[in-house]
């Protein structure tokens, strides 16, 4: 169990929105996160909850319609929000890099894989083409691929191999933090397992910090030290990995944990009824209340804040406050 002590990345009250007809649609509405050196941090939630938007905004890779509306992103004692594009470009990939979904067109089909990795190296280091390519081949070997495949094109790789190549590319400049957005989602279960094991191995060997984003809690369970659960642009629970699974506090987390099957336990498969809210007009009070099985009156009126329920276990639910009050805490 890690302590949230040495802050590598500190996100404070981050709000990110997209320009629309009537002002902004807030995809991320005030989140706070701290990631420590050497930690593997998971960010979980349904599609559309804002996790990808939050991660893109760290390096300010939002599409033209996206804006950071408020908050701070502190990395290595620097607030990334408000940095010039030139300064951001020095940080991108060199200190923070990303692993994208392999199923995406993340690799350009007209260039071979080796040159795309070498491109990253040559961007940030004074390296000759030959050296860069050599480094690229070493990286391919590091992720378990045959180095000579650097001269092959992305479409010549299978899904799993392409994902490995993307991981190799992310490590090209020895970053301190790697953000992986749904890295294994499109792969079959056996390959998923291989890739996740590879990522964990590399993370330990290279002393990396990692943020892993996924809608699949089992993926997070396999790799992360701690997890934050996002819903409708807000963080509803935040704890270390074991507490989340053994003692989920927020009704949404509980539903998520119940929702995936376990071979050992005799849990029934449950589905969370309803669907995520429309962020152009989110529900009043707690955003989860329309789908919550245990809501009380307060849930519809007041938004619950993220409170510390136990040692390093935070949750945002009115029921917990009520409980704590009754515990005389």
């Amino acid at each position: 169990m890690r302590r949230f002590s040495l802050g590598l990345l500190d996100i404070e009250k981050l709000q990110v929105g997209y320009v629309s007809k009537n002002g902004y649609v807030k995809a991320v509405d005030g989140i706070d996160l701290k990631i420590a050196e050497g930690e593997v941090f998971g960010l979980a939630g349904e599609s559309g909850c804002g996790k990808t938007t939050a991660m893109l905004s760290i390096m300010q890779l939002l599409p033209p319609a996206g804006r950071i509306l408020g908050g701070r992103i502190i990395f290595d004692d620097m607030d990334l929000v408000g940095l010039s594009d030139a300064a951001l470009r020095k940080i991108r990939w060199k200190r923070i890099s990303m692993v994208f979904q392999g199923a995406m067109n993340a690799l350009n089909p007209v260039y071979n894989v080796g040159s795309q990795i070498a491109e990253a190296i040559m961007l940030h280091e004074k390296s000759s083409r030959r050296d860069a390519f050599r480094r690229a081949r070493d990286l391919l070997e590091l992720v378990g691929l045959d180095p000579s495949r650097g001269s092959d094109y992305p479409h010549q790789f299978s899904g799993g191999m392409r994902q490995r190549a993307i991981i190799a590319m992310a490590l090209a400049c020895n970053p301190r933090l790697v953000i992986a957005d749904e890295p294994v989602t499109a792969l079959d279960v056996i390959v998923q397992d291989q890739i996740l094991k590879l990522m964990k191995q590399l993370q330990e060997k290279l002393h990396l910090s990692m943020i892993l984003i996924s809608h699949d809690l089992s993926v997070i369970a396999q790799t992360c030290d701690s997890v934050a659960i996002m819903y409708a642009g807000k963080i509803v629970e935040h704890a270390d990995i074991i507490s989340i699974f053994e003692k989920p506090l927020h009704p949404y987390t509980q539903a998520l944990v119940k929702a995936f099957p376990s071979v050992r336990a005799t849990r029934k498969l449950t589905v969370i009824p309803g669907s995520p809210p429309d962020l152009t007009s989110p529900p009043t009070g707690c955003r989860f209340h329309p789908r919550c099985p245990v809501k009380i009156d307060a849930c519809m009126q007041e938004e619950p804040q993220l409170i510390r329920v136990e040692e390093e276990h935070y949750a945002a639910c009115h029921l917990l406050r009520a409980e704590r009050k009754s515990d005389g805490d």
Partner: protein
Amino acid sequence: MAVLPIRRLIEKFAYFLLTLFLVVSLNFFLFRILPGDPVKMLFRDPRMTPQDLANLRVMFGLDQPLYIQYYLYLVNLLHGNLGVSFAYDQPVFPIVMQRLSNTVLLVGVAYIFFVLVGIFLGVLAAWKHGTRCDSFCVSFALTTYSVPTFWLSMLFIIVFSVWLGIFPTSGMETIGVGVESFGAYVLDLLSHLAMPVITLVLYYMGFYTILARSSLLEEFTQDYVLTARAKGMSKWQVIRKHTLRNAMLPSLTLAAINIGAVVGGVLQTEMVFSWPGIGSLTYEALLLRDYPLLQGAFLITALSVLAANFAVDILYTWLDPRVRY
């Protein structure tokens, strides 16, 4: 190294020959639809005696059934015999070919400029997407290709020749200039070439601007563009290295198939500027109802377009990156 797709080349060549044949036949049949006595239509010289007409009738096989006439037509064609022009009283073929060369000069120069300028504006607009520069480029392109070529030519003449006196009003050369020196000749040629070329460039560049811009904008939605930006490339670096190459393909395709469309604009330009090309020849032949000349001009125009399309098609097949990779 690229592998030449032999089979595809042969297919294309066969298709080219087929189209050639169809055009040639169409040319024949169109002119046979003419009402009235074909001999009188084709050889309308009032000095001809009935005996002359009868002789001509035999010579051109006009007393024969249609299929024999068709056969004779094809044979004549292969010998480069396109008939005799009434107005010039000379064989059609050499006249047409000489005028064709003038047109090729005009079209060649204009083509290079309108493709380059058009693409440049399109890339500029996409790069500055969402700004006023973008809106301006788009509006400019939409406007210029809404302006009829002949009218633009007329305006140019009024403004630059009549009022400002910068450029000559018509023709391809000032008579007698070539005698002095080659340099003077070239300069004179350029001054005559300037306005027709500018007119054509203004009109045809619009297509390329719009196309290049939308192709680039489409490329911008690709995931590998996000990867490139995440790697720390500047906006221009990303555009240049990851989007430009793929985005240019549709524009190149357009350049290849656009040749036929340019003919229409060239015709108008040649007419208004009195540029002695095959377009103005077509118009002259129309005015004079000189059917052999009209038929010859039309045939050569159509065949030139086909040949040019075919040549570019072959080039494109060879350069197609999908074949390479």
